């Protein structure tokens, strides 16, 4: 369906509805979280049509959801959320994406902006040397034969137990950095071969590591619980499961395309390929996905280890980097919600969406129980990032989910047009942001104009009660893959 033909009904200032269109095979409606300032950009690409395609998935429960940072993906839109019934529903590898458990962790330092500023060049160069980044890069963690299956089973815990982290790190991560149900034997040898050597590497594309300072605190009690204050230096790490996750998704999209006819499933887009959750193929995928998710947590844990080393080299052994939290934004999780007054066990596909559980939820670490689960929303390179905490509205209206970023609006080619990498680097440096990048074009492709306004995206989730603003962060240095 052409975007211009899509019926988009405003429900209030921040919600829109695309009614169920049975002729298009939709089993439910689409609920879009957006705003008058953002919706026009969303209508320029195919993302809303993709959210309608998601509404055709067998066993979908509640609406197909679109977060305010939604943009065109492949199969699912990026910024899309869909819950499917655990008994009668399907699992779609495309609903998780190629970068399984791509996510964000935020680390707070014991330093302030004034401590770091004079040595920022030295620091960014040291981190760039110590944290391997770029396409196909091999990491410094050399796994012994057979150890990869341990990593896939135990995730960040394996890393901490093997010297790559502090004991407290795993307490402050979604699922404690280890998703249960991992089946390493359902991960192909190719996936292990492709991703294994890349453990503890940042990767390329939109992955990055950013040294930031707390620019503005919006919620002081919550900030105090998170251990941050104005001008404190923090580090945001955005990376995923590297080639291992890419290959798992590739393998299972191929498999599910083969078996869909067997289950009588016919979809408008083959990238949505799926199988019943309770089928052999569905269970195998979920076991492989959990293994890849654990690899991603191990990966971010390894990066944190080398980051700590770099800070100690530049400053001294007294400097501490403590994990605030780690959240994933490409995942499928078994969760329970009340839908239309009935308790439902569902598989929540989050494709470019972050879990945002409210205060008191049993899956939040005890230290954050009073404030809600921390959520980190990175903006585009050179603009702001945000710390939020989950609110009750997310449980009521969005299957415990919020946005994951700013949301892309310009293609890589379009944003590069007429731009000079040296000039853009100089402009960022004039604004106090040092950039190091493995690839020359990486900087140009991730310029702020390629993205929506992250502050506007945050207004939507804040004002709809999905999550609450805690603090805004500003970059001092960026490392891009």
């Amino acid at each position: 369906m052409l975007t211009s033909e899509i019926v988009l009904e405003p429900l209030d200032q921040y919600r829109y509805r695309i009614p169920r269109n049975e002729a298009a095979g939709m089993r439910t409606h689409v609920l879009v979280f957006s705003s008058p300032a953002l919706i026009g950009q969303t209508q320029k690409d195919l993302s809303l049509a993709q959210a309608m395609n998601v509404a055709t998935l067998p066993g979908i429960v509640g609406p197909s959801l679109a977060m305010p940072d939604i943009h065109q993906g492949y199969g699912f839109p990026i910024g899309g959320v869909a819950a499917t019934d655990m008994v009668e529903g399907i699992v779609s590898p495309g609903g998780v994406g190629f970068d399984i458990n791509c996510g964000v962790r935020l680390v707070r330092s014991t330093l302030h902006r004034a401590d770091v500023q004079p040595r920022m060049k030295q620091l960014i160069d040291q981190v760039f040397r110590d944290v391997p980044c770029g396409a196909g890069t091999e990491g410094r963690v050399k796994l012994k034969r057979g150890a990869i299956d341990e990593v896939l089973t135990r995730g960040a815990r394996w890393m901490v137990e093997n010297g790559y982290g502090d004991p407290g790190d795993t307490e402050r991560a979604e699922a404690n950095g280890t998703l249960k149900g991992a089946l390493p034997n359902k991960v192909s040898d190719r996936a292990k071969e492709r991703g294994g050597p890349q453990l503890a590497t940042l990767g390329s594309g939109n992955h990055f590591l950013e040294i930031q300072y707390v620019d503005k605190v919006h919620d002081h009690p919550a900030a105090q619980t998170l251990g941050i204050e104005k001008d404190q230096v923090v580090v945001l790490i955005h990376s995923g499961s590297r080639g291992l996750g890419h290959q798992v998704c590739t393998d299972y999209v191929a498999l599910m395309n083969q078996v869909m006819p067997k289950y009588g499933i016919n979809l408008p887009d083959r990238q949505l390929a799926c199988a019943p959750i309770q089928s052999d193929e569905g269970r195998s995928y979920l076991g492989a996905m959990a293994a890849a998710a654990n690899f991603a947590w191990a990966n971010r844990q390894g990066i944190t280890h080398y980051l700590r080393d770099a800070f100690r080299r530049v400053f001294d052994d007294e400097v501490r980097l403590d994990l605030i939290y780690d959240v994933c934004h490409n995942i499928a999780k078994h969760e329970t919600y009340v839908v239309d007054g009935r308790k439902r066990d569902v598989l929540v596909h989050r494709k470019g969406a972050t879990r945002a559980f409210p205060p008191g939820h049993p899956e939040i670490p005890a230290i954050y129980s009073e404030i809600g689960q921390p959520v980190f929303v990175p903006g585009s390179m050179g603009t702001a990032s945000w710390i939020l905490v989950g609110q009750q509205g997310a449980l009521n209206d969005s299957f415990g989910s919020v946005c994951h970023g700013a949301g892309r609006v310009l293609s890589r080619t379009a944003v590069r047009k007429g731009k000079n990498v040296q000039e853009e680097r100089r402009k960022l440096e004039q604004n106090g942001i040092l950039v190091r990048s493995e690839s020359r074009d990486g900087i140009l492709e991730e310029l702020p104009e390629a993205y929506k306004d992250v502050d506007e995206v945050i207004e939507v989730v804040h004002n709809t009660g999905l999550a609450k603003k805690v603090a805004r962060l500003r970059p001092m240095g960026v490392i891009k893959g």
Partner: protein
Amino acid sequence: MQFELLEHPADIGFRAFGTSVEELFANCAHALISIIFDPSDVAPVQQINLHAEGSDRESLLVNWLNEVLYYVDTRRLAFHSFAVSFTDPCLLNCSASGETRDPLKHPVRLSVKAVTYHQLKLSKQAETWFAEVYVDV
């Protein structure tokens, strides 16, 4: 023309052409590796045989390109050329040439995670075969 690149808000794609299905599949592989690095810098110093299969022509194309990507990403090969043949409409063999990737000689332009079914097209118009493919970067 062998291929041209296509824009996508988050990713990138290509439209490839061929006077036969064999040539089309070879040109699609050429387009894919051209996104990753500059193939004109690659010497044909070694030969490698590649295989792919699918349940139909479209899935064969996606599986074929993911096979090429696996060799680029994991076996660290830089490809120079592809000679494609079919033993059956859904079974592909290829004799490819290339060399081991050298980061200095073959710097990466863009890293590709996977080849997708998104807006996949494969058809014949007049005497020309063409395909449109999007990749996740």
